[in-house]
């Protein structure tokens, strides 16, 4: 089975994240870069499925030069090879453009299954899986907390507010995962050594047959007009419990008409 896992490098949520004043795009230099957390779960699921059913895991990532670090990590976890789309022209691409580029890579690479995170910690659009399924014309099996494959049949548990839905389709398909799905492995020393020799193909937009004018900030269908740091919340009242903390809390709730 030919599994492609989409992986994105994002600014670490622990560091202070901001936008660039010049063009209102993500300031990637301001924060440490890490692999999007949910993508670790996507990779883990890809590895488990190939361990059970055979086949290969290919990592596809679109992002700046620096994303190589996260690609290496994915390979150390056990992925077989990677495709890195790296091109200045892509800077500032929104979800619609990103999905167009990734769909091209996927068509070129071929796949039985595409796995991605249900959401990234920076953009948090959570639309990419749906956009890719739409572009590629394959079933969308998203927000998966469990994936089962039997021949060409695929069934998932889709996380819902009330529990989960069971959803079925046939391969090829696009699956997005939630963190409940598995526990990602850490790269082993052997894995880290092996990763150094694994192939990483670097592609430009032109290599994909895409006109650079069709991607990036200028070609995107959305724009950030302005932004500002959220003002800190006004300081509230903090009391120390001397046996009447609950009563005071109730008084506060009453003063705000919650009770």
């Amino acid at each position, binding site marked *: 089975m030919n599994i492609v896992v989409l992986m994105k490098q994002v600014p670490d949520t622990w560091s202070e994240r*901001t*936008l660039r004043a010049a063009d209102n795009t993500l300031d990637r230099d301001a924060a440490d870069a890490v692999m999007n957390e949910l993508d670790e779960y996507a990779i883990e699921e890809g590895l488990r499925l190939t361990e059970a059913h055979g086949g290969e895991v290919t990592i596809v990532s679109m992002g700046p030069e620096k994303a190589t670090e996260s690609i290496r990590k994915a390979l150390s976890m056990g992925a077989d090879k990677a495709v890195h789309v790296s091109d200045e022209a892509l800077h500032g691409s929104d979800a619609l453009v990103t999905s167009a580029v990734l769909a091209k890579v996927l068509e070129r690479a071929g796949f039985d299954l595409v796995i991605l995170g249900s959401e990234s910690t920076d953009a*948090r659009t959570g639309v990419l899986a749906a*956009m890719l399924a739409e572009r590629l014309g394959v079933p969308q099996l998203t927000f998966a907390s469990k994936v089962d494959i039997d021949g060409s049949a695929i069934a998932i548990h889709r996380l819902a507010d009330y529990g989960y839905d069971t*959803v079925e389709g046939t391969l090829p398909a696009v699956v997005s995962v939630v963190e409940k799905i598995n526990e990602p492995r850490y790269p082993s020393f052997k894995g880290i050594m092996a990763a150094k020799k694994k192939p990483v193909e670097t592609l430009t937009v032109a290599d994909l047959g895409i006109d650079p004018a069709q991607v990036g900030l200028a070609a995107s269908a959305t724009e950030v007009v302005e*932004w500002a740091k959220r003002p800190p919340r006004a300081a*509230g009242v903090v009391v120390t419990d001397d046996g009447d903390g*609950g009563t005071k*809390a109730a008084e506060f709730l009453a003063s705000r008409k919650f009770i």
Partner: protein
Amino acid sequence: MLAEHSGETVKKVTTELLTLARSLGEPSVVWTGPGAEGAKDRLAEFGAAKVYVADSADYDDYLVAPKAELLGQLVADKAPAAVLVPATAEGREVAGRLAVKTSSGVLTDVVGVSGELVGEQSIFGGAITVQSRVTAGTPIIAVRPNAVSPSAAAGAAVLEPVSIAVTDAAKTARVTGRVAQERGERPELTEASIVVSGGRGLGAGENFALIEQLADSLGAAVGASRAATDAGWYPHQFQVGQTGKTVSPQLYMAIGISGAIQHRAGMQTSKTIMVVNKDPEAPIFELADFGVVGDLFKVVPQLIEEIGKRQAG
């Protein structure tokens, strides 16, 4: 705008979307599946002018694609100024597919929209507020539940059946079952006006009963930190935060939660925040409108008792 409903029952987010849509123009509701007749009065009460009804069961039986297909057809036929969807998991996915179909920009998780269709979004866990707009196609805007307070205004809510059959191409991901897990009668997490969340401070899964009791005394939903869901103390779908749900209730209560940045990302925009934590240095106190430094096992039972007294009296 796409209605979210369960049978005839109009979800609160739908009334929020109607309220917002009214400030931008004349709202037409898109209703999928059965129930429109029974919902008509409610939709009228919030100012729906028209209700496009596509009552096929396919919209519930197949994931996302049929709804996007329907909206795509309506966008082509009616040329709306914008399409609003709820920023729920499904709503955002519908938005994504519709964006591809119509080559339009999509704004997700919007908390407000101005007359010029500039959407306000809160990013990086609420640290930054951005104003964005769609520059190509029909603006598709996914609005975060609880961001708008619903207000009534009479509308005609004229039901207009649409006879667009769902194509086979949109019927590739079939919903074969819906499995409800423990949830009881509490409101939905993202829709609730009060959310009571518990964290590692609870110490054990069975102690979540205390959180549930407090929640029930207020008619609130229950949430949990990731430390609590990862420990298996509470089901994962109730996790609040960056990798869980984003909530913006009128009142958020954080009980035994330290307030890590990833947790704050999911609740920072709540209108009022109350905290109970025994560590006065816990970062969650920075957000608190009212905080109690103390042992939750003492403070919460007393609070529940006081609420009971006040509600009885």
